[in-house]
């Protein structure tokens, strides 16, 4: 029972964590990415198409990441080079991507909403020999696929990247002081574009995780707003990788619980609101404490 919940929660965490780390890098570089969900959706579709007919899962992952990255590049160029508002463009990308995906499914596969292809290669899950039999530990460490491992490896790497590398410093400079960065001879717009491409790549992977990692088919509602949950996660974590991962894990647990609670009298719809409520609460708490530390009266 507890093992099942832990395992399910970790599975639900992976796509959110992948996209959230991408979005975190993106926001550190100065761009709030509302379009993560669109990149996830396109990644999920590309992933399942490439993995169909005994395709290679590695190729499928790369393709999905590349598709998400391309979308990210387009979005970033619109924002950085055409001075378009990031929120509007992000929302617009979500609408266009959802429309294009459904249009494509109807035109190319003559199906509406769901695409079920034969012989989809699923992401292999790796069982670790001894640990797999230990309760709790087995559920945590064994039976996961490459993307779950990637997501959790990237979390400390992101901490290190932001704090200790030259590129990480430049990324933070591009976000915190683009004018100063420019005066130092850096190119903050290029850095910002690169960070959006990375966010797109990660979201594409997250999408592929949902389609070829979890279910093996594609559905137009497959992301279920997880791109926005990822947004919630890095807002929850205040752009810090560790806290963002904690947020993603928390939302993963909500997701796993919500499935269990269905049919037990606890309305799943109310559990679904929790991530979003938590973000509003966290933002409020941050603002109140910031105001107190400035010594102002409420």
């Amino acid at each position, binding site marked *: 029972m507890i093992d099942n919940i832990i395992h399910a929660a970790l599975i639900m965490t992976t796509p959110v964590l992948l996209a959230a780390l991408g979005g975190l890098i993106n926001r550190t570089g100065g761009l709030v990415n509302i379009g993560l969900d669109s990149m996830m959706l396109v990644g999920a579709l590309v992933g399942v198409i490439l993995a169909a007919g005994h395709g290679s899962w590695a190729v499928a992952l790369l393709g999905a990441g590349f598709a998400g990255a391309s979308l990210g590049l387009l979005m970033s160029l619109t924002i950085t*080079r055409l001075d378009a508002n990031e929120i509007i463009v992000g929302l*617009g*990308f979500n609408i266009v991507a959802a*429309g294009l995906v459904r249009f494509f499914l109807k035109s190319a596969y003559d199906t509406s909403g769901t695409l079920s292809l034969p012989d989809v290669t699923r992401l292999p899950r790796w069982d670790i020999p001894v640990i797999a039999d230990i309760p709790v530990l087995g559920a945590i460490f064994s039976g996961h696929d490459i993307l779950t491992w990637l997501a959790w490896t990237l979390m400390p790497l992101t901490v290190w990247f932001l704090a200790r590398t030259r590129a990480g410093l430049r990324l933070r400079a591009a976000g915190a002081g683009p004018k100063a960065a*420019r005066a130092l001879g850096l190119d903050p717009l290029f850095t910002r574009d690169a960070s959006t491409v990375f966010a797109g790549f990660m979201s594409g992977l997250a999408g592929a995780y949902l389609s070829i990692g979890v279910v093996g088919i594609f559905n137009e509602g497959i992301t279920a707003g997880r791109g926005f949950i990822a947004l*919630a996660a890095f807002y929850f974590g205040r752009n810090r990788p560790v806290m963002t991962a904690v947020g993603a894990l928390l939302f993963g647990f909500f997701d796993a619980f919500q499935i269990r609670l269905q049919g037990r009298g606890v309305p799943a719809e109310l559990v679904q609101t929790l991530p979003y409520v938590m973000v509003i609460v966290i933002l*409020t708490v941050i603002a109140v404490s910031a105001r107190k530390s400035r010594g102002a009266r409420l």
Partner: protein
Amino acid sequence: MATVVSPAPTGRGTVFVKPLVETLLPLLLALVLAAIVLLLAGHNPLEVYSLLATESFGSMKRIASTLAAATPLIFTGLATAIAFRTGAFNVGVEGCVNVGGLAAAFVGFTFVSLSGFLLLPAALIAAALVGTLWMVIPGLLKSRLDVDEVVTTLMLNFIAVSLTAYLVNGPLLAPGSANSATPMIADAARLPKLMRGSTLNAGFLIALALVILYWFWGKWAALGFETRIAGMNARFATASGMNVPGLVFKMMLLSGAIGGLAGGVHALGNVFRYVSGFSPGYGFVGIAVALLGRGNAWGILLAAILFGALATSGATIQLFSDVPIEIVNILQGMVMIFAVARFSNIWRRRKA
């Protein structure tokens, strides 16, 4: 971030050309890109577009259904514009549409003993009221604590959708009904139809009245002037003695009220109950409407009619040809993106 749509000061004379180009360019680009999508899928874009045009404006009946489809978009466009012009980036109108629609339906099927003179206005007031209340939290957070309203209103959209889904699946589910919908509203609560055999109803007249009101208000009312100044330059407005946070709070609430009305009119005039997911993104399309209309009352009306035309003709062309209706979403989203892009950057080098 504040000045997404700053309504241009309404001067006389020569300044007509630039806004016209700025309005038509995003539309044109979207049409061109969507044409490429259509070509790739093996359709003739010109045929599709002319079919769209005749299907939406070809006869009185089709015009009526275009206006009916435009009705909720006029509300959501105005709701978005009224917040944007004050510098409050409210992307939460979608949530207001949902809670407002449920509130109107609730009054409509609960207080059935009231006469039509009372029931219909009561239901509309309930919609506006609940929409207003829905914006109290982000409004307070924005004006008192400077919490980013984009994030809070975006999150509230998801909360609204889930919360209303919970209510219509549980406490407010129609007896004996398996799908997530409230009972039908009383006949007295229905908005009267304006034309036999079409869905055009009195909600459109309310929307028109609001457009005129918004135009007068923006042009002559002190508050209309203050909001515009606050949206264009908050520091100047503060220095001039305006209470900018107070203005932002008021306009967020007003935006919520109009968004709630959008849901109320949709529930009382079209669906006659609240069904989970009954808004096909009216709130988000409202953002595109407000942007394309450049925050101007008549611009918003025209943009809403345009998007209404797309929505209603898109449904018909899917029946008569094999062009998927999603071409409409693709167009709407691209208009939204291009409306905020500054294309002059391409041929003018950026200032260092």
